[in-house]
């Protein structure tokens, strides 16, 4: 419904309106910037929480202890059997000697000799099994436990289930939060834009009675909405990237164990999406607010 002939008219109208209602334009841009800033912060927090949870989950592994009576070939067969289970990522053999060394280093104090204290190595051979998908850990552990030659399976029983419960809810809640924020932003922005449109209701009414089509009336407002939305989101993106950038650089030295997301490509994608969101919110807010005035 938009043709080139009217294009310059639409842009001129949008520009005139923006500069005429300067105060309302500033209010709209500010509202937009705050909304996108909060939204962006929520997205960054969610992504970081997700990365952190992924890290926790991928640390999960199954330790399958072997019966001490097994022969060498039986031990190898079990490895093959475990690898055949679907969803298994890696199977690593840890000999009882290696397990003892590992345990010994955990106690760190080199002068304390476990074997001397206990008299003999009490640890069995084991396999450390990682799942392709951490969600499969419990299921895999149960299958491995049923295999012959397995003495015991350890996967952090109880803790794992709770971890998944927690991460599931964190993900649901953060997505719900972002959806709510977006809806709130649409409402807030629609309200601000309604003020700007309200100031021009007489003109809209006049256009309708003269015989302007709805689209002819809408376009300048849409362009205005896109401009306000983009300006608002641009401001918030600048603030956000600056704030997050300093956060990453200060935390990486002080709290190196918190794995912040810092890949440029991912961040740029997030910022671009926020920019698009701003523009879309501008149009959406305009659309919602405008329709009521077009109903003449």
């Amino acid at each position: 419904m938009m043709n080139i002939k009217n294009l310059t008219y639409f842009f001129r109208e949008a520009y005139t309106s923006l500069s005429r209602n300067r105060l309302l334009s500033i209010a709209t841009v500010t509202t937009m910037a705050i909304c996108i800033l909060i939204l962006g912060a929520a997205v960054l927090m969610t992504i970081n929480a997700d990365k952190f949870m992924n890290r926790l989950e991928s640390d999960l592994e199954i330790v399958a202890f072997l019966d001490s009576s097994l022969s060498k070939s039986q031990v190898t067969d079990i490895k093959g059997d475990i690898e055949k289970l679907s969803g298994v990522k890696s199977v690593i053999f840890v000999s009882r000697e290696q397990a003892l060394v590992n345990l010994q280093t955990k106690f760190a104090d080199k002068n304390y000799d476990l074997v001397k204290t206990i008299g003999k190595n009490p640890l069995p051979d084991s396999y450390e099994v990682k799942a392709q998908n951490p969600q499969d850990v419990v299921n895999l552990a149960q299958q491995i436990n049923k295999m012959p030659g397995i003495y015991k399976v350890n996967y952090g029983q109880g803790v794992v289930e709770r971890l998944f419960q927690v991460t599931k809810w964190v993900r649901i809640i953060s997505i719900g939060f972002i959806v709510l924020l977006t809806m709130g932003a649409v409402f807030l922005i629609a309200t601000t834009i309604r003020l700007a449109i309200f100031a021009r209701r007489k003109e809209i009414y006049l256009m309708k009675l003269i015989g302007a089509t709805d689209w002819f009336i809408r376009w300048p407002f849409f362009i205005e909405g896109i401009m306000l939305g983009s300006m608002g989101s641009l401001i918030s993106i600048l603030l956000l990237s600056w704030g997050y950038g300093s956060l990453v650089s200060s935390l990486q030295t002080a709290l190196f164990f918190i794995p912040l997301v810092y890949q440029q490509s991912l961040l740029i994608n997030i910022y671009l999406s926020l920019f698009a969101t701003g523009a879309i919110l501008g149009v959406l807010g305009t659309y919602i607010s405008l329709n009521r005035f077009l109903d003449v």
Partner: protein
Amino acid sequence: MLVQFYNVSKVYPNGVKALNDISLKVDRGEFIFLMGSSGAGKSTLVKMLFREEVPTRGQIFVASRSIVRMKRSEVPQLRRNMGIVFQDFKLLENKTIAENIAFAMKVVGSKSKDIRPRVTEVIQMVGLKGKENSFPGQLSGGEQQRVGIARAIVNRPLLLIADEPSGNLDMDTARDIMDLLYDINRKGTTVVMATHAWELVKNARKRVVTLEAGRILSDIYSPESL
């Protein structure tokens, strides 16, 4: 027939019965007064012509097209055949006189090269030559209504609708505005004018439809006695 009303009634959502069983025909080229005191239903009737309101019952045809069955997307085309003059002028304060008139051509998508000469022409027609670049606030009430009329005729409508066009003007200025409307009618435009001012109507030698409480009381040619 340009306008046909068949048994039109209008009940507003709040329950007010504004029009009651109105049947009325307006021929091309006619000048017709809708007379009636405040609240008689004049504005309601007039708004149905350009489909700001739709009847609760009955049928309305404008240029043989049913207003009632008309789709929303067809309404702009209907309105482009009409010019509307308002009691409060409805001029855009931040546009000049010429811009206010050009506005009506722009919003229906006229080409810029057609707009300028036509605007000059209608400004001349309503007697406002020299005021092109003034703003509405700098003009008298009568002059502002001339701008309103110029804007209403700039797209060469079939039907000119005026709802109390002189309601905000003194009697002398009102008569000047009437002369302008008669002039436009003489050049072929059908005019429907709502008014409660009997002084303007009584010696006009035009058709007068009188409304009272939403009904047609009489349909005569003044200056016959009522």
